[in-house]
């Protein structure tokens, strides 16, 4: 038992967990034909079958039941405000499965030249709203209300000690739906993690319909026709959003140190968090001189890299690897799209730079609160 807990604890270390997710993700949600080939070869498509649903759900439940026997796991999972997130794990899995299941089914139908499940013959296949829809909705609401009452009776809303501005709890966590942002704070300065990236998420989400000019797959579940867009959305939603929230909620403990789900939250736990900036790498390690006094001179390398990343990389990609996409989307769409994408990619990039080289900032100008 203990061995299993240790295994889980070490598997959930961010380096392992994130790397594992990154590698396996695109085989689960293949963005291209190549991935799709492997996806099927590895029989990942079975994941979206009914058996898989049953097995995985049983496993998940078993894991939670097993976990609740552990005091550390129980302490964190049964914290009232964390209960919805446990629920979220089940719900996300279930609905992902549901949509993927239907999508695969529809893909097969299309392949077989049959209409998709959602197909209907206008206006013959229409049904009346009264009473069919209204009634279904009504029953839904009643059941849901009943569920809400049961939830409320069963689980008291949290109320901790009265507010005390001079006594900060360790760790201090933002509301759970912002924990993804708080997780990003580890790798980015607040202006990026707290302001720029969230704004880009909102803008990016709003821009989806304008970026995705693929007319296929409107109004029914499908995967085949929308491989790239679904894979990208899934990556953003499941990895950069849900996964980070789960990590932030369950796996971040005192001093924002990382703790496995079965690990005791020891506020004395230490991690070697010494980091260096790119400028220090270059001037101190490479040139063996002190840091130049001039800020611009000091940070010129970082500035060049970032400029290159944002200014040279997109056109370069448009010319080479993403040529097709560029042609299909046109200049305006492509530019916005690619900037959003490479900005989102800075997160994993910075994660790995941190883990591998202890790199803190590529540009570090704390004098003007400008760190990147």
């Amino acid at each position: 038992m203990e061995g299993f807990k240790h295994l889980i604890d070490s598997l959930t270390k961010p380096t392992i967990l994130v790397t594992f997710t990154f590698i396996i993700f695109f085989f689960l949600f293949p963005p291209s034909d190549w991935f799709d080939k492997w996806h099927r070869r590895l029989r990942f498509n079975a994941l979206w079958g009914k058996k898989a649903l049953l097995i995985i759900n049983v496993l998940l439940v078993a894991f939670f039941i097993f976990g609740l026997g552990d005091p550390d796991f129980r302490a964190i999972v049964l914290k009232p405000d964390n209960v919805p997130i446990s629920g979220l794990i089940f719900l996300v899995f279930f609905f992902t499965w549901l949509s993927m299941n239907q999508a695969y089914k529809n893909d097969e139908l299309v392949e077989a030249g049959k209409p998709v499940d959602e197909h209907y013959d206008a206006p013959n296949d229409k049904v009346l709203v009264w009473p069919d829809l209204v009634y279904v909705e009504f029953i839904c609401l009643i059941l849901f209300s009943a569920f809400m009452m049961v939830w409320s009776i069963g689980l008291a809303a949290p109320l901790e000690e009265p507010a005390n501005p001079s006594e900060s709890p360790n760790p201090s966590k933002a509301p759970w739906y912002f924990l993804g942002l708080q997780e990003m704070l580890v790798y980015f300065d607040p202006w990026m993690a707290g302001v720029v990236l969230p704004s880009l998420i909102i803008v990016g989400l709003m821009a989806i319909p304008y970026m995705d000019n693929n007319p296929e797959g409107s109004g029914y579940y499908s995967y085949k026709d929308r491989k790239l867009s679904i894979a990208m959305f899934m990556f953003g939603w499941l990895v950069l959003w849900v996964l980070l929230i789960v990590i932030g909620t369950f796996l971040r403990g005192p001093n924002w140190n990382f703790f496995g789900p079965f690990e005791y939250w020891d506020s004395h736990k230490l991690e070697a968090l010494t980091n260096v900036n790119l400028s220090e790498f270059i001037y101190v390690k490479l040139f063996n001189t002190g840091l130049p006094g001039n800020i611009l001179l000091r940070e010129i390398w970082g500035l060049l890299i970032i400029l290159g990343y944002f200014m040279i990389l997109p056109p370069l990609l448009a010319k080479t690897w993403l040529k097709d996409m560029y042609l299909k989307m046109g200049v305006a769409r492509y530019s916005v799209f690619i900037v959003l994408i490479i900005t989102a990619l800075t997160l994993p990039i910075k994660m790995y730079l941190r883990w591998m080289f202890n790199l803190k900032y590529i540009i570090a100008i704390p004098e003007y609160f400008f760190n990147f």
Partner: protein
Amino acid sequence: MPDANKKKTATIKPVSPPPAALSQADDNTQVTRRSFFSWLSLGWLAFVAATGGFFTMMLRFFFPNVLFEPVQTFRAGYPEDYEAGEVDLRWKAKYATWIIRNDEGIYALSTTCTHLGCTPNWLVAEQKFKCPCHGSGFRKTGINFEGPAPRPLERFRIVLADDGQIVIDKTKKYQQEKGQWGDPEAFLKV
């Protein structure tokens, strides 16, 4: 858009002619581009300005002219009130601050232990701050050297006021491990 989605509505022609009161004037007036643009654009310009005024008002409304917050800055007398090499305890109780003067100048240390937030004591004989809770020790500079404290004590912003008095601003903290003690306002040169 697919044709199927189009609604089929019949356009019914109005039976009676529309009110004609101004229709003639409308017809007869030569809409010169200039007059059209000048009045309308002027109107919109003014309207946008007024709306801007409204939003400016909204914005300004959220910044009251006085604050009712507890005082976080205090005047700590003149630099001459502090003796070089001494740890001054007079503001410890009221503002949780030690003021220390060395040969170069003056700095203000927070009295909050970086371990669990207890208040250490200054031991003159041993020239160190010793936390009674878990035994963390800090040198006169605030650097931790023993016990569980993970990092040095924090320093507060310290500047001179117009009248030459020392002003301590507790809202701004400087942490040694972040290299902030080099900030000109973390240390008052005398």
